[in-house]
């Protein structure tokens, strides 16, 4: 992974000093709340329901074991001994003290980490596929360009105060796993007819209050122009974005209002001035950064391993885990492993300091000392030998990190919601936990098969509920908490936004509602059809009918 040189280190050190001084001035009354707000937000610090929340950047989800250990230490020392992985691959601490944040940042800087631009109206952490570099279906490893973009966007002087937040995702696979269509800018890397690295650029996607999938603004962009083109897009947005209304301030609204043709025209006009300038990425710079993402020093291994095969055959629990939590790898004899942060009945994405140490140890022992976080809120060991899988499983299981539910109904994507977040309309974690307990039967989960369930506590959609096969959204009705249900959302190349099935439900009703949606699916599915395929084939109506039919007999929801 990328290693800091003197320049990188100096920037994070200077940031610590800068933020320390800003905090001092705020606590000393020299900065008003309003003035301090964008400063702390651009450093990932929210003022939440019970305490501040600090969001620490994990650039494109890649971490070293040393970094994870440090995060564990920080969570223990400055928080309550746990952290939460978010849907943008970052780590959130729920209980730090505002006055401790400079110290936390100083500790992070010792392991080449920071909280820069994890919030606020600026370019946020760039996200990508958690299997970047090792996925069998990968065409281009997007991480070198992602790192170049991270540096370009860090304290960008022109885009420090945009109309609204700005999220960029990059992906280089045939099967998109980075939801590039749900980002302000999505960069899809591919090889063009000349076998050169090129980029298909999506713009104007985003979830939130007005969910819209992105539109292709440029089919073919040479990689050398990745920065200049993004700069042109964001410049047009900076000037013309709707600053008068925070709900309409995202780039998607501007793109929609102008129409993609006109927006493209304005971007292209801007781009002609930037195109061949200093922003053009040189081969030398790409090479400098790309050397950090060279393939690991893999051993030459056979494609099969007898001990693994035996363990699968003789140990059903291990076999179940191997089926759900182990993924293909481009190098023979290696696999990627998902460490499930979704044990039934616990907050999705949460991990204790002790568990962080365990995962860091696993990474050191079995996966070249590196790991990744996924937007599904799990951790990944990307390079594990087949012959080591059993040992990894045993150790992960002992730490409650091996729930074999990846990609299943209880692998719920869930925002912190009303338990922590001050923007929430409703709690989301207890809903996730209740659904997990309702379906706490592995055989039944396997029977249901691949499905994605996403929960957001409000329409900011941090839980990406619009693209969940089943999406749950917390809504406020006369001061009480209700939940609206959508079905048919999907991430990936054929992404779609889910449709609401009808009036909302109370928290108590939610496990039953999910149960009834599943019943319809199990009844209607044909052969190998996944939940989402069935929804796409038969539409929302049968689901709606079954869910509300039962309700009419019982108590009615509003």
């Amino acid at each position, binding site marked *: 992974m990328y290693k800091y040189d003197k320049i990188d280190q100096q920037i994070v050190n200077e940031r610590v000093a800068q933020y320390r001084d800003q905090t001092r001035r705020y606590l000393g009354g020299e*900065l008003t709340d309003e003035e301090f707000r964008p400063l702390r937000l651009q450093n990932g610090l929210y003022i939440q329901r019970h305490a501040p929340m600090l969001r620490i950047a994990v650039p494109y989800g890649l971490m070293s074991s040393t970094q994870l250990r440090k995060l564990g230490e920080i969570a223990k020392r400055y928080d309550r001994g746990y952290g939460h992985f978010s849907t943008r691959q970052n780590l959130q601490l729920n209980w730090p003290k505002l006055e401790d944040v400079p110290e936390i940042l100083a500790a992070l800087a010792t392991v080449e980490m920071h909280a820069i631009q994890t919030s606020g109206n600026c370019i946020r952490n760039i996200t990508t596929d958690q299997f970047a570099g090792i996925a069998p279906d990968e065409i281009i490893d997007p991480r070198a360009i992602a790192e170049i973009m991270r540096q370009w966007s860090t304290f960008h002087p022109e885009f420090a105060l945009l109309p609204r937040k700005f999220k960029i995702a990059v992906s280089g696979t045939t099967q998109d796993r980075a939801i590039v269509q749900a980002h302000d800018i999505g960069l899809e890397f591919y090889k063009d007819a000349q076998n050169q690295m090129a980029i298909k650029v999506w713009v104007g996607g985003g979830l939130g209050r007005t969910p819209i999938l992105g539109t292709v603004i440029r089919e073919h962009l040479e990689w050398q122009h990745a920065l200049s083109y993004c700069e042109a897009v964001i410049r047009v947005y900076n000037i013309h974005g709707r600053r008068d209304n925070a709900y*309409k301030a995202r780039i998607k609204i501007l793109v929609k209002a102008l129409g993609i043709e006109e927006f493209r025209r304005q971007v292209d006009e801007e781009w002609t001035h930037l195109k061949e300038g200093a922003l053009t990425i040189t081969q030398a710079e790409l090479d400098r950064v790309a050397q950090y993402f060279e393939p690991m020093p893999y051993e030459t291994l056979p494609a099969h391993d007898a001990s693994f095969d035996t363990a699968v055959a003789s140990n059903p629990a291990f076999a179940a885990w191997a089926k759900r939590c182990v993924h293909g790898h481009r190098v023979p004899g290696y696999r990627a492993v998902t460490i499930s942060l979704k044990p039934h009945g616990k907050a999705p994405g949460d991990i204790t300091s002790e568990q962080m140490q365990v995962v860091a140890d696993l990474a050191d022992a079995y996966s070249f000392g590196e790991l990744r976080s996924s937007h599904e809120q799990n951790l990944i060991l990307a390079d594990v030998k087949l012959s080591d899988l059993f040992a990894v499983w045993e150790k992960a299981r002992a730490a409650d990190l091996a729930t074999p539910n990846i990609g299943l109904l209880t692998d719920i994507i869930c925002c912190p919601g009303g338990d922590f977040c001050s923007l929430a309309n409703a709690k989301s974690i207890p809903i996730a936990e209740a659904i997990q307990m309702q379906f706490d039967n592995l055989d039944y989960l396997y029977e249901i098969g691949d499905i994605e369930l996403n929960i957001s506590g409000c329409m900011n959609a941090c839980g990406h509920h619009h693209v969940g096969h089943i999406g749950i959204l917390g809504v406020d009705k006369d001061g009480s908490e209700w939940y609206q249900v959508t079905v048919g959302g999907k991430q990936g190349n054929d992404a779609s936004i889910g449709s609401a099935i009808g009036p909302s439900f109370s928290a108590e009703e939610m496990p039953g509602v999910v149960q009834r949606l599943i019943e319809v699916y199990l009844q209607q599915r044909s052969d190998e059809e996944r939940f989402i395929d069935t929804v796409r084939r038969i539409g929302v109506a049968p689901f709606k009918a079954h869910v509300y039919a039962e309700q009419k007999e019982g108590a009615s929801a509003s």
Partner: protein
Amino acid sequence: MSNLIQLNAANGVAEIVQDAWTRVIPPAAGEESVRKQAGKVVLFKLTGEQTYTPEQVANTTIPASGKILVPLTVWQARKAELQTRMQAGEVGIVLATHETAEALKAEFNDLNSLPIIAIYVERFADGRIFTLGNWLRTRYGYTNELRAIGDVLRDQLFFHKRAGFNSFLIRADRSAQDAIASLNDFSQPYQGAVNDVPVWRRMNRA
């Protein structure tokens, strides 16, 4: 004491200097209705929105002598009476963040005929000021004094500087002396800026 920071033209060092320019400020509009969007008071004008009504412009008092900073809208309506002073180098223009660089360019074929352009940011969180600065410097080749005025606070100064500004009128209730330090918050920024190239072109990082 003056609250104006200026980068010394010769060595780039920031110093506090006396302000030679007087801002011409139109009178407040009659009954300005509070605009709301989605239940919230609108804090920012949209790019291209009107800045002053013709009435406000007409009722603006322009000092009879001395160097004056005139809002673009006032200049547009009353340039005839300002012509000789402009030629004497006594008129600078104030552009608000929701006004466009094109509108300014339309008035002055050669922007360098202006001794100073000031960009007025009503609220510090309005990042359009950075793009405007950048455009004036890189697109329109403006080389004279470019000044940030309005809600100008020290925590944005580093960005202002990199966006091409070379003078900064710190908001009256804050200390310009304290603010100077923030012009040097970072010693080797990653990306290029006005008059700067990306770090990988600036030095050898290999």
